[in-house]
């Protein structure tokens, strides 16, 4: 019951990056270590390395995104790859071209890597399974399934501030049910060995049998935040109000919005994270988002380094490093 076999080479190296599931602590740690060397580089005058020179990467976005797409583009460019972004949401699939036809056509252009975002769970996995053998796939978010690069940049940020995972208590707050980010974060945090992962949300926004995912569930913010080292807030989609998941934004903010008052229940050195884009006054108060505990912008900066690390590890494990 894992996606592990397809994303690793026979030597256990990264072939694709589709999900955190099935990846070892050692491999995740290696991603974080590699990211660190790229993070150091971002501060330098010349930000480019020739590692992926001559490689062609296609950003295949079947769903809109600004931040993720941009950081992938930057990461590819800094590794000297040729990178093209295609917003398929508005192109050929609208004309009835199937997912597989799109992939076949792009393959014919001698592509080395696809970075895929899609609205359906399992889409990146499907593409990895059906693409030509020399092509690698990075999942940039598929439906409600996984967003593993986001999870890794969050892990990187946590390690940057906390220097360790052992003994940490982490709370993820908000729409866990629909969140691919949360699913990947939960798997990464547990693999890296934090003490406790908590999810805090009303039952309408929690998946069935959530404890089997390796978390403890809370429906009360103050209780759930008590003594935690890290708080990860999730974005609340406005359409949740229309389909009876929640009564109103204001009631949600009252119960589950992160305010300075609620923050006091966490440890004094708690760090506050958010994968963005944030809804001020819905899931998080501006004073917290911009306050001393917030590392939200640092997460964005780290996004480039972590994505560079993952791309370079994939290309080097396929034996194609320049």
């Amino acid at each position, binding site marked *: *019951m*894992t*996606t592990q076999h397809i994303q690793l080479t026979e030597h256990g190296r990264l072939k694709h990056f589709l999900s955190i*599931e099935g990846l070892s602590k050692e491999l995740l740690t290696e991603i974080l270590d590699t990211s660190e060397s790229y993070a150091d580089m971002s501060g330098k005058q010349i930000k480019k390395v020739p590692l992926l020179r001559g490689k062609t990467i296609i950003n295949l976005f079947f769903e809109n995104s600004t931040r993720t797409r941009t950081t992938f583009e930057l990461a590819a460019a800094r590794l000297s790859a040729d990178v093209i972004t295609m917003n398929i949401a508005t192109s050929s699939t609208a004309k009835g071209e*199937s*997912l*597989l036809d799109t992939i076949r056509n792009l393959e014919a252009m001698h592509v080395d890597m696809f970075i895929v975002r*899609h609205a*359906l*769970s*399992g*889409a990146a*996995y*499907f593409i990895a399974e*059906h693409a030509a053998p020399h092509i690698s796939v990075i999942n940039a978010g*598929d*439906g*409600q*399934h*996984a967003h593993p690069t986001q999870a890794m940049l969050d892990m990187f940020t946590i390690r940057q501030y906390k220097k360790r995972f052992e003994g940490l208590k982490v709370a993820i707050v908000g729409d866990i049910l629909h969140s*691919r980010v949360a*699913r990947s974060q939960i798997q990464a945090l547990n693999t890296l060995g934090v003490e406790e992962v908590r999810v805090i949300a009303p039952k309408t926004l929690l*998946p*069935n*049998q*959530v404890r*089997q*995912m390796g978390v403890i569930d809370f429906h009360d913010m103050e209780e759930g935040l008590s003594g935690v080292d890290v708080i990860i807030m999730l974005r609340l989609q406005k359409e949740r109000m229309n389909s009876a998941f929640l009564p109103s934004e204001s009631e949600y903010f009252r119960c589950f919005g992160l305010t300075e008052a609620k923050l006091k229940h966490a440890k004094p050195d708690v760090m506050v994270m958010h994968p963005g884009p944030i809804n001020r006054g819905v899931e998080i108060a501006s004073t917290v988002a911009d306050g001393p505990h917030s590392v939200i912008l640092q997460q964005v900066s780290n996004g480039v380094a972590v994505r560079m690390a993952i791309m370079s590890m994939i290309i080097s494990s396929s034996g194609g490093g320049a």
Partner: protein
Amino acid sequence: MKKILIKNGHIIDPLNQRDETGDLCIAGGTILSIADTAGFHPDLVIDAAEQIVCPGFIDLSVCLREPGHTQKGTIASETRAAAAAGVTSLCLPPDTRPCIDTPAVVELIKDRADKAGYPRIHPIGALTQRLAGTELSGMFALKQSGCIAVSNANQPLANLLILRRAMEYASSHNLLLIYRANEFSLSAGGCAHEGAFASRYGLPGIPEAAESIALAQCLELAELTGCRVHINQISCKHSVIKIQQAKKYGANVSADVAIHQLHLTEEDMTPFDSAYHVLPPFRGEIDRKYLRDALANGTVDAISSAHQPHDLDAKLGAFPDTEPGVAALETLLPLLLNLTRQQVLTLPQAIASLTQKPAKILGLPVGHLSPGAPADVCVFDPQASWTVDNENWLSAGKNTPYWGQTLTGRVTHTLQNGSLIFRLAAAENS
């Protein structure tokens, strides 16, 4: 018509409680008296030593995909698969295109069935016009033209009042209602059982309650209207409990379960493998246990294949985007025998769930080997193993989780109305 002798087989005929080695004589399309072997001069002898001889299987739900979806299968291709599966009577759900809501479509199907040399296709008429769930179909005309029952297949009814009226009207014409329990407001958008697997892989879930709530409503209305109801393809513990209660209070209701639901659970699913995309979805271990027990104690009456062949494209895509359904005819017997090997059912019980029981539900004169009965017979080798691959597969749909696996139990001969409609190539010499 040929005179056929099936000799030395292990005859299992649940209705007549026969379970013994013996010979079966067939002439004029019917079963002859058992004692008649002396003086019987057959045109064809089938040596059934080491094999089981039983009534041909009656399948409550087989999608043939014709008319309308012939890229997935045709009456010719799927009846060949049915014959190879030992199935001699099958019910065709009404969701063809056009759907079975006029006698003309019934005529077309009957005509194609005759041409395919497989006359025992029993079309199920649409309960509502175009299956749209709002206006009643011409059920009397459908019955006159040969529909065995009425159903709305997987399509929703506008509201409970339509279901009530449809039940009242169907029962006025003594028509059986075949009902698939699904509360659409609870299952909409779902593609997997709402459980640990769906949570983990971020797949939109379908809770058991979507089925058991619709089932409870249907049972209440059956009580109110006196309509005879058969519940098709139940999948969960709570449905079993509801049917058990209804039967305890004397309700005129029967139920079946799809063969794969008795074997696979969400735990068995390979992530994002569309071969496992099926409705109702593969449930939990506890549900499977309840379904198996229910079959053993008679709460659930019958097993169906719920055969739904698909073309390759229908199963090629991101999991939620693929079409649900399993091509299940040809794995029916080996999976049935697995239930006996796992001691869920005795062999006569297993065979009854595909013969005597569905015949009773449908009011058909087949499903047993009594003298004078139509000679619908299945002969199978319970020990023969075979691999689910291109060489052995007849259905146009290759969408099965068992593809590539080696299964045990294989039909060698199928007789329909005294004619041999299938003989396994390896059994040519017999």
